Every structure is written in structure tokens, then in C-alpha cells.
């Protein structure tokens, strides 16, 4: 068992605090994705777990052993760097086997290990090449292979796909997902690409300025972001935010007066609300409809249209100059300059209070993972 436990981990460089007390509980075999804006401390946290930087305060446990003072090689972790960091003067075989050689493993064992990993990653024909003779995707595989051969308890990936082109990124993403299934190892994966986060993660940790903002399954974060920051971070295009005031409070919903004067309902927990509170209504672009058929209506003028084929994005401006985006059918014929009535379901609305904290949604959609759904269906 190799659970990873972070207990109030802090990091400062000199007197600059980068991480302000991170608590995380990662189960054996879990695929955990760290996301957050650039500079929020994701890499720093990963380097602390790897043992490349000293932990200023707090406890780090790997497999129920306190590893704060262990050197990287003794922690049973392997790191895959964003820049791959292959040894440039060693061929692929040597790159992959160097760690084992240092560990004093015998030659036959090393050869078997490397060959096995190379086969899994489809790089067995490249073993004699130098890193400079490989393409970006191949280098990435070698870097992953170098991590695999050491049989680590925990894999650490720092934005491993960000140097690849779009097509290769999708392909490698799928392969990393499969690799996780095959190896069953614990993986901590840093990215700022939320498609990667949503598709790969069993659990996503959203970080903001050195703090964990929220931690949960991909759909939990999507359906129940607990802060405005998370709501804006998860989902693409970004959630729309509209300033509003609480007009009246009903048993299971709020009635809001939006900044452009429109009146809408939102099915959220009302217990902490007062009349006339300043709140923010959040509504995802994909929950908006171009027709006025979904109950809650807003009128807006179209300032830009992006046609992607399978869908179109309409960039809208409300009468009070609030900007919004909506996703609509690819067949939509709406054009720039038109004023349209858009609508949404009161169930799909998010509401955030003045402190940016979300009010719990009553009627959110599915938050279960495919595996959970399959299990439930099997029982029923």
C-alpha cells in the first residue's frame, strides 16, 4: 500500500511563502491531478513530494512512512519532467537503465526490465538512439519509461504533455490513462489543461495561490464547485458570472434580480441568504439555450460568433455591458449584431455569495464516475 498523505505542508523560499499548508490524502492506485493557474505552486508541491526541495513545515507520508528527510531515490517515487530531462549523452537504453544500474541491480534483470518497459511504450526499436535523434513524443515515452523501470510506488508527472503538439497530446493522454490501468500505481499529475484533468483524474485538486481550493472527482468539481474560482477554472469555455441581488427567498430556491434587470430563479441552499444580498449568478455556456424555452430568460446582443462545426460559441453582451458566452448548435444561424432571448434551467444555475463561496445546488446532475455507475447498474 502506498498511500500518500500530506499534512499541512508549507513551503517558503526565504520569507516568501509559496505553499500555505496543503492537506491531501491520496489512496493507493489513485490518479490525482493537480490543476491551477501558472505560478500557483503545483510544481513546487510536486518537487516537495519528490524530495527535490526541502519541506519547510508539515509532514509527508508515503506508504505510512514519514519521508520528509529521505532523499528522492529512497522515497519510492519517480518523476517525469515537463522538459523530459533525458541524459543527452546517453542512448535510450542507458537513459532508462541508469537508475537501476546505480541501484546495483544485475545486468540480466536490468535488460529484462528495460525491454519490458520499452515494449509497453512502443519504443523498443529506439533503444540505441540518442535523445537528440528522437521526436518530442518519443522523448516523452523514454522519460516515462525511465520512471516505469524503477517500479516506483508513486509516479509524479509535471505537465508531461505540454511540449507535444495537439494530436500527439490527445494520443499520449489516452496512453497515460491506459498505463495507469495497467500499472495500478499511484499517480500525481500536474497540468494546467483541464481536459487532461477531467479525463485522467480519479480526483482533481484545484490549487489557487498556494492553497487547495477544492478537491474532488471531476464531476463533483463540475457540478458542485465550492468557490467561484473553481467554478471559473473547471469547464471550457469558462462559466459566465452575472452580478445579482437576492429579490426573494423561497423554500427551495432564490429569486434573483440580475444586473441587467432580468429576474431568474436558482435552486440552491437558501439558509445563509438574506434579502438584498449581493450575490453572483453562475451559468455555464453549455447550459444556455438560444430559444426561450428553458424557463429563465435573459435578453442579449451578439457581439461575436465562433463556428466550430459541431457547435458554435456566441459571445453576448447584456444591456449593462456584462459579457457572456454560450454554446449553441453548430447549425445556428444567429449572427453578429442580433439581439436574442436566451434561456436556462433554474436547476443549472450556480450562486456564489459575496465572499465567492458557492451555495449548495439542490438539483445538480450526475457526479458519479463511469466505474461507480457501472457498479450501481450491475446491482440494479
Amino acid at each position, binding site marked *: 500500500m502506498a498511500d500518500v498523505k500530506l499534512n499541512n505542508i508549507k513551503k517558503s523560499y526565504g520569507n516568501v511563502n509559496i505553499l500555505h499548508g496543503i492537506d491531501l490524502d491520496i489512496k493507493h492506485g489513485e490518479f490525482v491531478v493537480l490543476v491551477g493557474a501558472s505560478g500557483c505552486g503545483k510544481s513546487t508541491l510536486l518537487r516537495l513530494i519528490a524530495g527535490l526541495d526541502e519541506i519547510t513545515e508539515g509532514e509527508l507520508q508515503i506508504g505510512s512512512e514519514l519521508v520528509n528527510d529521505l532523499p528522492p531515490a529512497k522515497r519510492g517515487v519517480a518523476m517525469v*519532467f515537463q*522538459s523530459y530531462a*533525458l541524459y*543527452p*549523452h546517453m542512448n535510450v537504453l542507458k537513459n532508462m537503465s541508469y537508475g537501476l544500474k546505480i541501484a546495483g541491480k544485475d545486468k540480466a534483470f536490468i535488460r529484462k526490465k528495460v525491454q519490458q518497459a520499452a515494449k509497453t511504450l512502443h519504443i523498443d526499436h529506439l533503444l540505441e538512439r540518442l*535523445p*537528440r535523434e528522437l521526436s518530442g513524443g518519443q522523448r516523452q515515452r523514454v522519460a516515462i519509461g525511465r520512471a516505469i523501470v524503477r517500479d516506483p510506488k508513486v509516479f509524479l508527472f509535471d505537465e508531461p504533455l505540454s511540449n507535444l503538439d495537439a494530436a500527439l497530446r490527445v494520443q499520449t493522454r489516452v496512453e497515460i490513462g491506459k498505463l495507469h490501468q495497467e500499472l495500478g500505481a499511484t499517480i500525481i499529475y500536474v497540468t494546467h489543461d483541464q481536459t487532461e484533468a477531467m479525463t485522467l483524474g480519479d480526483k482533481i485538486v484545484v490549487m489557487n495561490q498556494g492553497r487547495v481550493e477544492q478537491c474532488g472527482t471531476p464531476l463533483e468539481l463540475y457540478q458542485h464547485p465550492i468557490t467561484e474560482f473553481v467554478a471559473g477554472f473547471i469547464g471550457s469555455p469558462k462559466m459566465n458570472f452575472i452580478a445579482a441581488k437576492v429579490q426573494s427567498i423561497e423554500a427551495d430556491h432564490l429569486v434573483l434580480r440580475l444586473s441587467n434587470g432580468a429576474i431568474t430563479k436558482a435552486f440552491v441552499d437558501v439558509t445563509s441568504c438574506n434579502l438584498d444580498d449581493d450575490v453572483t449568478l453562475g451559468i455555464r455556456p453549455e447550459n444556455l439555450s438560444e430559444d426561450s424555452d428553458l424557463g429563465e430568460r435573459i435578453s442579449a446582443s451578439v457581439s461575436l460568433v465562433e463556428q466550430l462545426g459541431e457547435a458554435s460559441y456566441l459571445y453576448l453582451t447584456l444591456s449593462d455591458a456584462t459579457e457572456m458566452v454560450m454554446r449553441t448548435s453548430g447549425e445556428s444561424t444567429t449572427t453578429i449584431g442580433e439581439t436574442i432571448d436566451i434561456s436556462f434551467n433554474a436547476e443549472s444555475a450556480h450562486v456564489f455569495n459575496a465572499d465567492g463561496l458557492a451555495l449548495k445546488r439542490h438539483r445538480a446532475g450526475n457526479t458519479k464516475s463511469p466505474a461507480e455507475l457501472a457498479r450501481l447498474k450491475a446491482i440494479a
Partner: protein
Amino acid sequence: MNFALPMKHNRGKALVTHAVLMTYTLIALFPIFVVIINSFKTRKAIFNDPLALPTPETFSLVGFEEVLLRSEFGLFFSNSLIVSVVSIFFVLLFGAMIAWALTEYSFKGNMLIGILVAMGIMIPIRLGTVSILDLMSSLHLVNTLWALILVYIAQGLPLAVYILSEFIKQVPKELKEAARCDGVGEIKIFFTIIVPLIRPAMATVAVFTMIPIWNDLWFPLILAPSDGNQTITLGVQQFIGQYVTDWNSVLASLTLAIVPVLILYIIFSRQLIRGLTSGAVK
């Protein structure tokens, strides 16, 4: 049509650059050329027309015969070689180690050592000749090659540390970290990751270090002037007399002295060209 202009401009610039470099090369090579052609001429021909190429009438190997058969040239030569090679080896080894320590680790006195090294570049070591001689005589090293080697290591280190530090700083941080994750010890990281990557820089340093050592007359004269330990520059002096100078022998030994420098330079310059870091990251 428009983009022809910058091309032309570049070509003009290249022409000027090349002209300057060619002129410089000619000026630098001319004395060497004169030394070499005259070493193959009779004494009379040297004085009659120093700039003429050797002809069948003026051709003579008397200088080489004198140097190779009737003097201890072989000994001088091997002394010079030993001193240079051993010094270069230790300058490179210690230089790279100091550079690695100063750039990679922050420790107490790091700054101070860095400043001392920088001062070593600015202050010529010859200013310390008297104390060096003092030191060597109390260590009983006067008239040994070790005296020269120690001084040359000290002389070469500051620049070596300075140049190598710059190169070590450019080795991506991730490479060292990857090695640390692989469980490679710090000393092994230095020898198996850092040194191979800064080989081109070490070649540069080797060339910079070798030339002043090979050509030095000052320290051999002061620290190791006795017969068995003379280096080539000092050995040549025996042909230069107060009244008569054996120009044939002087020129012949100088010509021979150029050979090893040339060979070492060729070896190292191949290293200089090699770009080893490509493919390291990204």
C-alpha cells in the same frame, strides 16, 4: 525585391568581418612562418634573406641535427610535456569541481571563494614570485617539475573556474534532479552527467591553459633552472649566447616546439565544435 536588401547588408558585414579576421590571422601567423622557413636554411641564408623560402642551395637541416642529436632536446621536450599535461589535467579537474560546487551548492564562504577566484583572474600570479619561491624552497620543491606544475595549476584555475561556472549554470536543473531521482550520488552526477555535458567548455579551457604554460619562461627560470628539469623554452636559451647565437638550433627547436601545441589544439578544437547539449531538454 525588398528582402534582398538585408542579404546584401549581411554579406557586406561578413566581408568586413572576414577581412579583419584574415588580416589578424596573417599578422599572427607571419612570425611563425618566418621561424619555420628559416629553420630549414643554412646560417648564411638566414642572414642574407630572412624572408626567402628555402631553395635547394640554401636548404639545410643542420639546426635539427644539432638540436636532436647533440643537445638534450628530448629531455626538455618531455619536461614541457609532463608539466603541461599534468597541469591541464588538474586545472580541468579542480576547475570543474570548484565551478560545480560554487554554482550548485549554497554554503558558507561560497561568495568569498567566488570573489577570491575573480581576483585570481585580475591579479597576475607573477606578482607573487618571491613568496612562491620562498614557499617552494621551504617545501623542498625547487628544481623539481612539481614546483612548476603547482604554480601552473594555481595560475590556470581562476579562469577555468570562471568559464566552467558559466557552462555549468546552463546545464538544465531538471537533468540533475532527474539524476537525483534515479538515486545517483552527487559525485557521480558530477562525473557522469555534468562533465560529459561541459566537455566543449573544458576543451576551451584546456587550450587557454596550455598555451601560457607551454610558452612560459619566467617560472622555469626561477623555480626549475637546473639541467634535468629545464622546459623547452628554457632549454632553447642555451643556444642563445652572449656573443654568438646558434640561430639554426634556436629556430629548429622553436619549430619542433610548435608541434605538440598544434596537435593538442587539433584534438581539443574538435571537441569545441561538438554541440553535446542538443536533445537534453524539449
